[in-house]
């Protein structure tokens, strides 16, 4: 009787346990959206995608990077893809992000707009084969992302602009330097040479003006004659100025003061 009673009590519990018990299951998936990488030629860029475990048991997976790329453009150098990590375990109800670094090499036919398409696969790792040594096909499950890579123009280098700017700056510096050098050279010429050269020039100019004055007087213009008469005096003054060792506004004012005295 006791045994019967215990059994009678256990049966409902067993039935309830069977009703409420959920079998452990794995549910491998991926977040929707195909990755698209725009990559500068000669450079790299990264994209990512996400794997999901919607089940109640952990999932071990392994990544298969694209073995080859398809392109509509002939004779291109295909992108180089680095996937991180290449394997892992996704906890139940969790997500797992896979990063993909894509590099597009420089090449004759790798022009902006060139596209490549490759498949990145995430395969569920199973430790046991269902075949158990028999013939047949092992069926593996996984998810895949179709990676599209588009080559874009390389980033413009600042080097040419920098070189041009440097050339302009150096040229400007040289011009300024040579101008100053010339001035300094001119200033350092012997004073006697400058005096002689200046005196000669002014005397010639004064003589010319004197001749012009006499010509004007001969023509009969009184006013013109007067103006012309002033010119020899100006010529003499100019001669004196020229004989001074150096010119300048301060020096030019001295003779006036002397006149006032």
């Amino acid at each position, binding site marked *: 009787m006791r045994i019967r009673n215990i059994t009678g009590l256990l049966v409902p519990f067993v039935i309830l346990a069977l009703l409420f018990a959920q079998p452990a299951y794995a549910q491998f998936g991926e977040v929707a959206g195909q990755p698209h990488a725009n990559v500068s030629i000669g450079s790299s860029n990264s994209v990512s995608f996400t794997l999901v475990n*919607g089940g109640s048991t952990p999932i071990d997976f392994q990544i298969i990077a694209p073995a080859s790329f398809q392109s509509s453009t002939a004779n291109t150098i295909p992108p180089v893809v680095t996937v991180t990590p290449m394997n892992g375990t996704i906890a139940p109800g969790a997500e797992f992000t896979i990063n993909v670094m894509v590099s597009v090499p420089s090449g004759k036919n790798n022009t902006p707009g060139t596209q490549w398409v490759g498949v990145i696969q995430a395969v569920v790792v199973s430790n046991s*084969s269902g075949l158990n040594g028999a*013939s047949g096909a092992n069926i593996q*499950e996984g998810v895949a992302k179709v990676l599209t890579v588009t080559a874009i123009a390389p980033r413009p280098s600042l080097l040419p602009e920098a070189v041009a700017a440097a050339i302009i700056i150096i040229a400007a510096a040289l011009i300024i330097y040579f101008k100053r050098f010339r001035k300094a050279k001119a200033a350092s010429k012997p004073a006697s040479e400058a005096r002689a050269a200046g005196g000669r020039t002014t005397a010639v100019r004064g003589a010319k003006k004197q001749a012009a004055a006499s010509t004007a007087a001969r023509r009969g213009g009184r006013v013109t004659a007067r103006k012309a008469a002033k010119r020899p005096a100006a010529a003499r003054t100019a001669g004196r100025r020229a004989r001074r060792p150096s010119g300048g506004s301060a020096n030019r004012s001295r003779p006036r003061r002397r006149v006032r005295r």
Partner: protein
Amino acid sequence: MSVRAIPRKIAIGLVSLSLALAALALVSTALPLDATSSNTVVANVIVSNICFTSASPSSPSFASVAPPGSDNTNVEITDNDVGGNSQANVYVAGTSGSGATLGDWIGSGANTIPVGNTLWDLTSDSAYIGNALTNSLVETSIVVPAPNTLVTTTSANIFLGLSVPAGTSAGAYTQNIEIENLCGASETNTVITANVIVQGVCYISLSTTTLNFGTLTPTATYDTNAVVTDSDTGGNIAANVILQATSGSNGDWIGSGTNTIPVGNTLWDTASQSSYTGTPLTDSGTLTPIVVPAPNTVVTTTSANVFFGLGVPAGTAGGTYTQNILIENSC
């Protein structure tokens, strides 16, 4: 002083006296009987009991969820009473939507998540547990203490969790949640708008892990009708099926020693065939026209079949051969 002047003065005096008496009478009637002090005015006021409600944040965000999935009950909402004076009991309800969807999470189009998929709890939980939200106010056991003149703001926390059912369409969803503070006959409420992004996702689950073509003699074929069912349970996006043979270095069937059967001798098709016909399998991922439809909240599991056949080339050495076939969903 004339005879006329005296009565005028008397009249003025009488009028003044009467006015003074009237004023005195008025004052005496205005004062309460017990107001014995002639210079004291006693003012009375009744301060009523009240509790106020303000919740922060006003737009709490749940982490994006891939269905079927959940966010733990740890999204914190603080219910504040600023300046009240009474302890308040907290009530909650979902108020978004209307009619059949009253209280539900509302997405684009007719997409919804049931109101009861939001759970509330007194404490932060590291799991999706708690009490289901309803579309009518439910008293929680959460209490906002009474503020006082020293502590003029008091608060209590309520924690929310969310479960996104299988097949829920991808997109943004919002839910209005009313939080009411009730103290005595006084009640005040505020409405917060919770939001969540449901991710698009596709899953894969295969009906079998092996295909056994039995024993075949050279030149014999196996009709393209060995089926593998590819299912998506709980996702929300249609998936394209990709096939690839992965055994060996080039996908061939591997026998003992160096014996092989070429990979392309395995054919696949979208329909069951009564002959050995179809598309040769390859060792690179091939996008097939097979599509696993998107599940939804009504039909939470969808599937598509892939059929395989095999031909054994003439002269193939006897023995056991195996091939690995990879079936992938991509969305």
